[in-house]
C-alpha cells in the first residue's frame, strides 16, 4: 500500500513536471517562414542561427534603428525602403559620411534562397553580409562593438536580446544574427504572377505573351519567338544565383567578379538579380545606369556590347529572333508584352506587410 502511494505521488509529479515543461518552452520559438512550394526548398539558414519569432522581432527593430550608424541618422531601412521593395530609388546611395556607394543598392527580396551576397557575390551568407554596411566607413560607419554597447544601455533592447538569444548582454554577433533572421522573412510571393501560378488570376493577352517570351528561347528556323530571359532569370522565383557580363560595356569600367576570383574570365561579371518587384527598384544595373525597364529591354534587345567575357546567352547565334541575326530582335509590341509580365512581379502585399515595416512608426 505504501509502495503504491509512492508510485502515485511519482506519477503526479511526473505529469505536473511534463505539463510545466510543455507550457514553458525553453528558449525562443522557432519561426516557420511561409512560401509557396514552387519556390523549392533549396534555402540557406545556418545551423547556428535558426529563425525564431523573438530573433526576427529584434532584427526588425534593429533594421530600422538609426543608432546603428555613426551619424545616428541612418538605419538599414534608409537605403532599403519597404515601399520600393527595399531599395531607395537612387543611382548610388549616400553613406553616413556623405560619400556615394560604388554600386547601386540591391533590393532585399527572397534572400532565403541566396547563398552569396553583393553584386559580385563576394560574401557567403547573410550574417557576413549584414556586418559590411553596418561597419563600412562609407556606409553606416560604426563598429559592431560600439553599436552593441550603445544599445545595451536600453532596457527594451536588453529585453528583446534576452528573449532572442537567452542573454541580455548584447553583442555584435547577435546584432547581425537578428538582422539576418529578419531579412530571411522578407518573402515576396503574392504578386499577380503568383496568383496566376496558383490559378487565381487570368493574365491578359499581353501578359501571357510576355510569359511565353520570357521563358522561350528564340528559334528563327522554326519561327518560334523568344527572349531567352529564363536562361538566367528562370523559374517562379525569377532568380538563379548566377554572375554574368550582360554586355553593358565593351571595356567594363568595374571589374566585378574578377576582383573576387582573380580570373580574367570573370571581368565585368555581376549578379543576375531577382526580377521580383523589379518595377519598383529603378534605377537598374550595378551602376544604376538605366532609369526605366524600357531602357533595360532596349539594352538587351539592341545594345549589347561585345567583349571577351560577354555571356554566351547574349551573343548572336541561337540568341536572335532573326535568321543569322546578331541582336535579340524583339518587336516593340513584344517588348511591351515582356514589360507587362515584369509588372506582374510587383507584389503589393510585400511592400505593405506590417511584419516588415518600421516599428518606430507604429
Amino acid at each position: 500500500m505504501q509502495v503504491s502511494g509512492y508510485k502515485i505521488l511519482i506519477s503526479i509529479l511526473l505529469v505536473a513536471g511534463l505539463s510545466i515543461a510543455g507550457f514553458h518552452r525553453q528558449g525562443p520559438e522557432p519561426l516557420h517562414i511561409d512560401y509557396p512550394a514552387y519556390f523549392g526548398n533549396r534555402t540557406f539558414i545556418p545551423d547556428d542561427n535558426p529563425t525564431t519569432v523573438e530573433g526576427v522581432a529584434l532584427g526588425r527593430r534593429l533594421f530600422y534603428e538609426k543608432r546603428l550608424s555613426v551619424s545616428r541618422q541612418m538605419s538599414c531601412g534608409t537605403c532599403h525602403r519597404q515601399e520600393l521593395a527595399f531599395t531607395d530609388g537612387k543611382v548610388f546611395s549616400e553613406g553616413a559620411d556623405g560619400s556615394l556607394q560604388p554600386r547601386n543598392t540591391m533590393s532585399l527580396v527572397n534572400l532565403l534562397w541566396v547563398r552569396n551576397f553583393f553584386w559580385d557575390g563576394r560574401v557567403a551568407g547573410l550574417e557576413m553580409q549584414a556586418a559590411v554596411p553596418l561597419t563600412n566607413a562609407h556606409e553606416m560607419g560604426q563598429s559592431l562593438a560600439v553599436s552593441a554597447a550603445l544599445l545595451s544601455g536600453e532596457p527594451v533592447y536588453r529585453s528583446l536580446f534576452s528573449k532572442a538569444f537567452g542573454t541580455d548582454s548584447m553583442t555584435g554577433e547577435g546584432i547581425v544574427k537578428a538582422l539576418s533572421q529578419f531579412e530571411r522573412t522578407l518573402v515576396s510571393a503574392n504578386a499577380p504572377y503568383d496568383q496566376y501560378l496558383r490559378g487565381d488570376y487570368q493574365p491578359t493577352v499581353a501578359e501571357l505573351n510576355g510569359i511565353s517570351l520570357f521563358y522561350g528561347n528564340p528559334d528563327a528556323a522554326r519561327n518560334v519567338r523568344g527572349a531567352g530571359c529564363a536562361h538566367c532569370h528562370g523559374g517562379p522565383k525569377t532568380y538563379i544565383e548566377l554572375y554574368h557580363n550582360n554586355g553593358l560595356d565593351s571595356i567594363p569600367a568595374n571589374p566585378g567578379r574578377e576582383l573576387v576570383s582573380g580570373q580574367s574570365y570573370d571581368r565585368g561579371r555581376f549578379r543576375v538579380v531577382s526580377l521580383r518587384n523589379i518595377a519598383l527598384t529603378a534605377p537598374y544595373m550595378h551602376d544604376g545606369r538605366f532609369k526605366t525597364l524600357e531602357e533595360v529591354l532596349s539594352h538587351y534587345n539592341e545594345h549589347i556590347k561585345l567583349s571577351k567575357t560577354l555571356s554566351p546567352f547574349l551573343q548572336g547565334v541561337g540568341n536572335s529572333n532573326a535568321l543569322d541575326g546578331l541582336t535579340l530582335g524583339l518587336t516593340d509590341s513584344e517588348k511591351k508584352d515582356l514589360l507587362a509580365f515584369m509588372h506582374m512581379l510587383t507584389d503589393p502585399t510585400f511592400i505593405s506587410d506590417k511584419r516588415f515595416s518600421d516599428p518606430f512608426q507604429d
Partner: protein
Amino acid sequence: MNIFRSVIVLSFQLAFIVSAYAQTGPGIKISGEVTKPLTLSIEDLAKMKRSTAVLTDRDGKPHNYQGVALQELLEQAGVTMGKQLRGEQLTKYLMVKCADGYEVLFSLAELDSSFTDRVVILADKLENGPLPDGKGPFRLVVPGEKKPARSSFQVVEMVIRYAKD
C-alpha cells in the same frame, strides 16, 4: 629596432597583399568525398590520359572536343569508381560548379564505364584548338543528351557528396 621591425611587418603585409591580388592560373578543384583532394591546371590535364567526345552545339553541327574523361579525373582524386562503385557508394553524386555560378549534378553511375559506354569528358580543347571565350578553359561535354544544359561552360569545381535524404 622598432623601425626595423615595422619594416619587416610592412613588407610581410605588402607581400600578402600582392599575392592576394596576383592572378593565379585557372584550375579545377575536386573535393568532397575524395581520398585525395586535387586542384588540376591545364598543364596537369595535358599530361593525363586524353579522350574525345562529340557534341552537337547550338549551331546544329557535331564538334570534336578533347579532354580527360570524368571517370579518370575522379579516380585520380580517389573517388569510388569502377569496382568500388556499389552499395551505398551508388548514393553519391557529383556536383559540377561553374565560374558563373551555374551548377549541374550527376550520379556517379552515370560517369562510370562499368555502367555506361557514354564517356563524359572535361574538355580543354575544341577541334584541337582552345575553347572559345566564355566557355573555357574547361567545359563539360556530355554526349548523347537531347539538351546541352549539362555540357556546362567554365567548370571550376567538382564536389562529390552522399545524398542523405
